[in-house]
């Protein structure tokens, strides 16, 4: 079965540089989520998109932006990188929502970002 694809898997950047992370959700999933996970922490929700529109915003810094394209893939753009941005970044997708029931999220393998 198709899974969520993320690229790149690893990324090393220097402080103040920019980074773009890509996510390809499972086909026919209409919601995409971005998470940041630091060592030993639970995933922190950054932002989500439903049918290509931003649906929710979590603890996403103003230096970060994201969008979802017509083919449903999503990109997370990170500018003015800081050392504290070093983390695992996960993308997840979920199938169409039915009223009153939230569907499970399927996570990609993640992008490990290291800022030096």
């Amino acid at each position, binding site marked *: 079965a198709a899974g969520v694809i993320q690229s790149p898997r690893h990324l090393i950047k220097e402080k103040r540089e920019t980074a773009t992370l890509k996510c390809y959700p499972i086909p026919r999933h209409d*919601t995409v989520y971005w998470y940041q996970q630091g060592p030993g922490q639970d995933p922190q929700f950054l932002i989500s998109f439903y049918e290509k529109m931003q649906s929710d915003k979590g603890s996403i810094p103003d230096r970060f932006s994201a969008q979802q394209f017509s083919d449903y893939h999503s990109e997370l753009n990170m500018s003015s990188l800081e050392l504290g941005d070093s983390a695992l970044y996960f993308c997840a997708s979920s199938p169409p929502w039915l009223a009153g*029931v939230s569907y499970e999220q399927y996570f990609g393998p993640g992008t490990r970002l290291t800022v030096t």
Partner: protein
Amino acid sequence: GQQVMQIPQYQHVQEGEDFTTYCNSSTTLSNIQWYKQRPGGHPVFLIQLVKSGEVKKQKRLTFQFGEAKKNSSLHITATQTTDVGTYFCAGPSESNYQLIWGAGTKLIIKP
């Protein structure tokens, strides 16, 4: 704000012993989901519980959802090395489509 609390943070067990993690929400949940994250891996969906008092089993894993739909537990019988990882519970936010995650319980098998 809405919170999901999970305990313990870590649990060390001998292989073959049982393991339990507990999840408690500050609000009534429409459902609760459980995920497992292996070391170096990504969270993997295990199960979703929707009904009050629901109990579901997956082989050696037993999931329960409390009558008040505010707490849940995951119990693993006779742990194996393949069970190692962090188990997260997560419940939907009251106000949007986000999942509110517990902090996770890390299952460690003693050598």
